[in-house]
């Protein structure tokens, strides 16, 4: 088997859906009839229809992994259904070579009343295994799912995690040429998720994978091609994972700071990021440069010690760093100015924002908390998905 053969080829793929149920059903009847006549027109949208997937093109070779990202309802699942042959496209063509495995739903065909062991056969049969194959793999499956003790218990008494584990254990026995993964691996506990990805890692080199996920770290970890979909259309197609992810995030940037807690003991007058340049509306800081903040507020309480905490979070609102705290004493009705300086910022390239917390220095009680108070971007030529790119020196000693 050559390694550069194209396993999945998608050309000009489009699919329309209907917004109204009754109309949709009626179009269904029409499609049934025109399907027999194999009519070739009807490309245009009929009333109440929209393009759920519009003009998607890509090629995937063995060993490649395509990340499919986009907002909810962008058409990712529809595209997967077409790739899996569940529904026919309205335009364009998909050519798939080899055995297709789909991790879209785990544990398909399970009957809750039957035991885990019986359901392995049900699920296996639906995934296309023969009885002999399941017989041979039964022990492996039970071991992989780690539920030997409960294998003869009805599946309805399983926890949802156990069901998913059993489902994945069966699916993991597939040896597909093309693997389609929807967001099914998010369930299960950490140990199992790790096991799933270990399995996927082992089949990756011999498989063409289409991976749908909302988890960008996961996408950047395993994908080497990316398609960003927006309202059915491909917004970005290419091999620069970082750019695709950036475009995805930019859809969700909200510039609205939100006050999470406020006991009216102080008001924030301004929060500025001092910088020389602004690109796309975001202050820019070079990697390794200095981060300077200029914060102004007015206190309303006489003689109180305040503690100021600044947290940096990433685009998914995950806190990734905290600035060292500092305390100051307030003077009633007086405006205060705080200048903050962080030197040698080693955050990796990307977009970040600040959360600001003011606490009482004595009791540690919160006074004011504002999330997403300011955004900035770090510039560096290297794209990494980890939040920090730490300066390092190497000494190669031979």
């Amino acid at each position: 088997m050559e390694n550069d053969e194209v396993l999945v080829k998608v050309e000009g793929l489009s699919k329309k859906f209907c917004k109204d149920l009754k109309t949709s059903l009626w179009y269904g009847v029409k499609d049934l009839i025109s399907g027999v006549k194999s009519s070739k027109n009807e490309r245009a949208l009929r009333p109440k229809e929209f393009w759920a997937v519009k003009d998607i093109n890509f090629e995937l070779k063995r060993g490649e992994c395509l990340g499919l990202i986009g907002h909810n309802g962008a058409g990712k699942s529809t595209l997967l259904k077409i790739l899996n042959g569940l529904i026919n496209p309205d335009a364009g063509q998909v050519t798939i070579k080899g055995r297709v495995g789909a991790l879209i739903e785990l544990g398909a065909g399970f009957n809750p009343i039957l035991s885990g062991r019986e359901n392995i056969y049900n699920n296996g049969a639906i995934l296309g295994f023969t009885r002999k194959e399941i017989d041979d793999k039964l022990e492996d499956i039970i071991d992989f799912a780690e539920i030997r003790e409960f294998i003869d218990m009805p599946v309805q008494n399983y926890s949802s995690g156990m069901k998913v584990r059993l489902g994945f254990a069966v699916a993991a026995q597939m040896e597909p040429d093309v693997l389609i993964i929807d967001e099914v691996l998010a369930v299960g506990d950490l140990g199992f998720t790790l096991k799933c990805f270990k399995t996927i890692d082992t089949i990756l080199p011999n498989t063409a994978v289409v991976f749908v996920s909302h988890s960008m770290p996961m996408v950047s970890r395993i994908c080497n091609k990316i398609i960003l979909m927006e309202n059915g259309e491909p917004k970005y197609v290419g091999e620069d994972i970082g750019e695709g992810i950036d475009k995805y995030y930019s859809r969700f940037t909200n510039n609205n700071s939100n006050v999470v807690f406020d006991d009216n003991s102080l008001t924030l007058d301004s929060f500025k990021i001092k910088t020389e340049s602004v690109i796309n509306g975001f202050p820019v800081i070079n990697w390794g440069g200095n981060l300077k903040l200029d914060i102004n507020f007015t206190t309303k309480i006489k003689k109180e010690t305040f503690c100021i905490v600044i947290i940096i979070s990433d685009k998914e609102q995950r806190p990734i760093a905290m600035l060292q705290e500092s305390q100051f004493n307030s003077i009633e009705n007086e405006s205060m100015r705080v200048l903050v300086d962080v030197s040698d910022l080693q955050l990796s390239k990307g977009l970040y924002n600040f959360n600001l917390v003011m606490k009482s220095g004595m009791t540690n009680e919160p006074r004011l908390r504002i999330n997403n108070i300011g955004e900035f971007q770090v510039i560096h030529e290297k794209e990494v998905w980890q939040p920090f790119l730490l300066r390092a020196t190497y000494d190669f000693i031979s």
Partner: protein
Amino acid sequence: METRIYKKENSLSFFKLLKGSATDICKSRFLARQLAERDIKAQYRQSYLGIIWAFIMPITTAIVWIFLSSSGTVQLSDTGISYPVYVFSGTLIWSIFKEALMMPTSSTNSARGLLSKINFPKEALILSGIYKMLFNSLFKIVLLFVLMLIYKISFSFTLLLFPLGLLSLILLGVSVGLIVTPFSMLYNDVGKIINLGLSFFMYVTPVVYALPDTGLMKTIMELNPLTYVIGITRDILFGGTFTYLMPYLGVVLISLPILVLGLVWYRLSIPVIVERLSA
């Protein structure tokens, strides 16, 4: 390596579709058996009366008609054999036909979740439905034989043909069922209309009473192809006169091309249905 192409234009010819359908039926035997086994096991595992439910429907219908006839509420023409057996055999054959007709829809409907998630040979649904029907019919037929013993009806050698008769009965039902399935998947009305229509149809078919010798009813019944199907299947059971053998064979012969058409039609329409269900 197997190459699949998905596109709008189905340039596939009728014969290619038929061939695909045939290979998928072949490939899906294990899956079909597994699905049938799953449903049967699940059905009986969660019940104490279990298999008894398979008998109750034909028995109750038979009892009602035995009562109506013995009390003189309805006057029926001579059936040739003892009436309870006649009614029971009639309702049995009718229920098998009705089940066969509804099966493609109900099988497909209960697999809705699977259809929109996983690609598997859809013909397995039909095949597993047939397996389930054969299993359920088996018990009713055993019961019929018991009744025949009780009422001292001699077992005729034509009984050997019964499996064939049963099979053509099922195939007839399934082939018509396959044609309507795509529509009944889209609109619930279709299933309801069929149900309603069947309950009327039963009374213009010699299910619970014999074909009258004269009158309007005779004309109507003779126009109804099911009259021949029920009649001959019953003749096979009791060694009757086989008066309507030719029209029966005609109906069976016509059902074969309908079955082939039905399979191709079903294969063609599943993606359209999945699209409308999951959209």
